[in-house]
């Protein structure tokens, strides 16, 4: 199991060359226990921490131009850049790595592993080779793990971060230190998946919400539209249409009845007209008969007028009956003689006696007059009847005219109704068409939007399933993580309590579930408890308390790691100013000194904190003089510092007993 833990880097030696911050090139070999970098302000103590970090993992996160700025600020020249280098000898497990970097370009100048020197070639990138070798030997996943551990755990700058209250960082440190080597990478990978799926889910949810909102709007519009259709009294129109259609049937029937009435009357009129015509003919016939009888009567009274008239004209006026021309008297007398004496026609000699016979001798005038009278009466009766019939005919014509007027009225109303029906049908059909059209548009939009919503819902569902699945795995990992924590908790609490006891009395670490931003699931983190209160937040402690607790936590972690894995580490602490203000320097020094036997410890301190230095040195080994880097020697002193150098040297000599 131990073999699966990562290995922390132990800087065994640092060599700084050509860096103009310092007065000279310098090197230091770290020793187990206390290592003390001491000096005055602005001599490069803190920079050394960065040089270690830089040398080990390259450019520190967020401090890209750190060294470049320092050079510029220092008035360095361009040509000088290439000379500033750091060479680290690092122990990772059983491997010894040597690496030399250009401080201004971050380029690896030299890299060896257990004496095997790697050089850059056409296909070999030293950075890559270095990283591969580090990963291989340390079991970390990427070089970034070392960057993280150095920054968050192994190097505690003055006024640095608080791992104890930064739950994400704490959890990752714990994951890296106490789980199998690729656990953290796997955890982060799954967490990223969860995060990705969650991002997808939320992203799609937002888009889906937009489409759904639009869908609701369209659905509302459709509903309103349908409602509006209803409000346009479609039912009323239909009812009116039904009434009109009923009315039209009734009117049509009425119209038919009128037409039928007219036809009947016309038929009667025709019959009557025929009858009148017949009567007229009869009357005419009667009149004609009367005339005939009259003629017979008159003929009976008079002679045939033609021959006597011709004879008369010839006799008295000698005028020809044919051409009305006068003829000689003697000729006329001869013709008259023939007519009157012989009673024969002077032209054809036919007998004229018949024409001279008076008709009344043979004709019964009374009988004729009676006949005339009878016929006259019959004619008058018929005329009377005819007059009556004519009256009827007139009435009938008037009735027909009246019916035609009625027909005109009904027909007008019928046409009006038909037009109104057409109008209503148009009104009914038009909204239906428009509604269909509008609703079709709405339906199309709704379908499209619903498809979109469904589409995003599907993606969401898939993301949700994946997220659930990954979350489940993550939870499973969190459980495994918790089990690991369970295993180290006692030791950690023990060490932690041991470090802080003299300062805070009984102080333990308890695990509490926290859903951190980074984990996205509830995970166990350590929370300090003292004075009966769990200190979940930094503000629940004083500055000295939290600084002390932070040091103790980091020391404890490294100690537990060392205990579990057997792996060493180099823990760097640059104590804060504040912690000395409260007179707790001996307690802190006491606490720190407890770590001397555990592993490597680097204390970076200002020489002005002589009490603190005195205390930590007291507990150090006797070879303390070899464990010190004196920045008064390697740093570039200011004029003021130069003046003070003698005093500083004396003070340092007093502390380390030189």
């Amino acid at each position: 199991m131990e073999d699966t833990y990562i290995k922390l880097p132990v800087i065994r030696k640092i060599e700084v060359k050509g860096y103009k911050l310092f007065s000279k090139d310098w090197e230091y070999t770290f020793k187990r226990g206390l290592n003390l970098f001491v000096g005055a302000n602005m001599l490069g103590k803190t920079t050394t921490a960065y040089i270690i970090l830089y040398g080990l993992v390259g450019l520190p996160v967020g401090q890209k131009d750190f060294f470049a700025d320092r050079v510029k600020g220092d008035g360095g020249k361009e040509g000088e850049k290439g000379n500033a280098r750091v060479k680290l000898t690092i122990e990772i497990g059983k491997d010894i790595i040597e690496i030399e970097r250009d401080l201004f370009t971050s380029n690896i100048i030299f890299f060896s592993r257990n004496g095997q020197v790697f050089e850059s070639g056409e296909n070999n990138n030293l950075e890559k080779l270095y990283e591969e070798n580090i990963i291989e030997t340390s079991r970390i996943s990427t070089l970034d793990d070392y960057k993280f551990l150095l920054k968050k755990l192994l190097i505690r700058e003055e006024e640095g971060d608080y791992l104890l209250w930064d739950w994400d960082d704490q959890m990752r440190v714990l994951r890296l230190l106490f789980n199998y080597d690729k656990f953290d990478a796997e955890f982060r990978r799954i967490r990223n998946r969860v995060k990705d799926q969650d991002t997808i889910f939320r992203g799609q949810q937002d888009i889906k919400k937009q489409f759904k909102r639009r869908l609701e709007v369209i659905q509302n519009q459709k509903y309103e539209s349908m409602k509006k259709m209803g409000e346009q009294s479609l039912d009323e129109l239909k009812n009116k249409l039904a009434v009109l259609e009923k009315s039209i049937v009734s009117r049509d029937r009425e119209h038919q009845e009128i037409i039928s009435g007219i036809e009947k009357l016309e038929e009667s009129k025709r019959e009557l007209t025929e009858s009148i015509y017949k009567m007229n003919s009869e009357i005419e016939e009667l009149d004609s008969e009367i005339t005939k009888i009259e003629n017979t009567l008159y003929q009976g009274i008079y002679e045939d007028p033609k021959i006597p008239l011709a004879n008369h004209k010839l006799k008295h006026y000698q005028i020809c009956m044919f051409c009305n021309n006068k003829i000689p008297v003697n000729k006329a007398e001869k013709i008259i003689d023939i007519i009157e004496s012989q009673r024969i026609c002077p032209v054809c000699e036919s007998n004229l006696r018949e024409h001279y016979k008076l008709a009344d001798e043979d004709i019964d005038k009374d009988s004729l007059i009676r006949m005339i009278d009878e016929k006259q009466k019959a004619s008058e009766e018929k005329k009377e009847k005819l007059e009556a019939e004519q009256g009827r005919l007139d009435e009938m014509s008037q009735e027909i005219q009246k019916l035609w007027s009625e027909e005109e009225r009904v027909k007008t109303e019928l046409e009006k109704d038909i037009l109104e029906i057409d109008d209503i049908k148009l009104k009914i059909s038009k909204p239906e068409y428009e509604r269909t059209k509008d609703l079709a548009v709405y339906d199309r939009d709704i379908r499209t939007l619903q498809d979109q919503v469904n589409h995003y819902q599907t993606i969401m569902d898939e993301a949700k399933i994946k997220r659930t699945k990954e979350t489940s795995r993550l939870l499973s990992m969190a459980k495994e993580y918790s089990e690991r924590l369970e295993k180290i908790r006692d030791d950690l609490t023990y060490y932690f309590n041991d470090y802080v006891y003299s300062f805070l009395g009984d102080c333990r670490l308890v695990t509490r579930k926290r859903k951190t931003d980074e984990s996205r699931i509830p995970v166990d983190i350590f929370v300090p408890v003292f004075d009966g209160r769990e200190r979940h937040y930094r503000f629940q402690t004083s500055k000295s308390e939290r600084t002390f607790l932070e040091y103790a936590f980091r020391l404890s972690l490294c100690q537990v790691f060392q205990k579990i894995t057997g792996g060493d580490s180099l823990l760097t602490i640059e104590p804060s100013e504040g912690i000395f203000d409260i007179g707790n320097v001996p307690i802190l020094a006491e606490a720190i000194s407890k770590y001397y036997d555990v592993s490597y410890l680097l204390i970076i301190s200002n020489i002005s904190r002589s009490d603190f230095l005195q205390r930590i040195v007291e507990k150090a080994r006797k070879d303390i003089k070899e464990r010190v880097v004196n920045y008064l020697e390697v740093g570039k002193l200011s004029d003021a510092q130069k003046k003070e150098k003698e005093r500083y040297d004396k003070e340092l000599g007093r502390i380390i007993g030189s």
Partner: protein
Amino acid sequence: MEVKYKYQIIEENREFKRLNEILYVLYSVRKLDLTNISKIGVQKCIYLCEILAPLRKIILSFLNFIYWHRGPYSKDVQNSLDYLVSIDAVNVESFSTYEANSYANYIITEAGCELVEKLTLYPKERDRLEWIEIVMRIIRAYVGSTNLGEDYTGIDKIIDLVYQEPSFKEVRQEKTKHVLLPVGERDNLTMELINFLERVEENLPKVLDSGKYKLNLETILLSFFEYLYLEYLSQS
């Protein structure tokens, strides 16, 4: 057998009736103790009887009167007269010619009177005789009691009044001879006058009304003749 068309029968009938009407005029002349009547007189009397016939609601048979130089003239009247003479129903009392004109006076014979008697057995003919008698009585009254023109004698004097008759007068004023006079037409001026007179008669106080149809008819006729006479007077 001879087939007679309807128009022939009617025309034959009209010829008989024309004879009848001429006989009635001559019969009336005899009944009114007038010795004879000239052919001009017959023409004018027949014209007046004809044009005023609507008053009696009867139709006479002479329609083709024209405007001639001595007033209304119808050759049918003369033809009928000649025929009646030929059958000895009428006698020519005197006959004379002057320049191109011939003058004759006519008188009904006993045979003619017999014909009238025979004809008036038939009621329609009786009505016609009655009407002509009424008109002839009024004509006699006017020619006998008024100072009409001296150019004519006896019944012929009526010419002066005939000249005032509205229908004829209208045509005469146009001075277009041979024009057919509007006898029998409903809208001639005479008819207008008759209608006017009838309306006046209808509105007359009943004290004058004997209740007898003839009186009414004669009253209107008298008014008409009075009008003609007044016109004649104003003319002269």
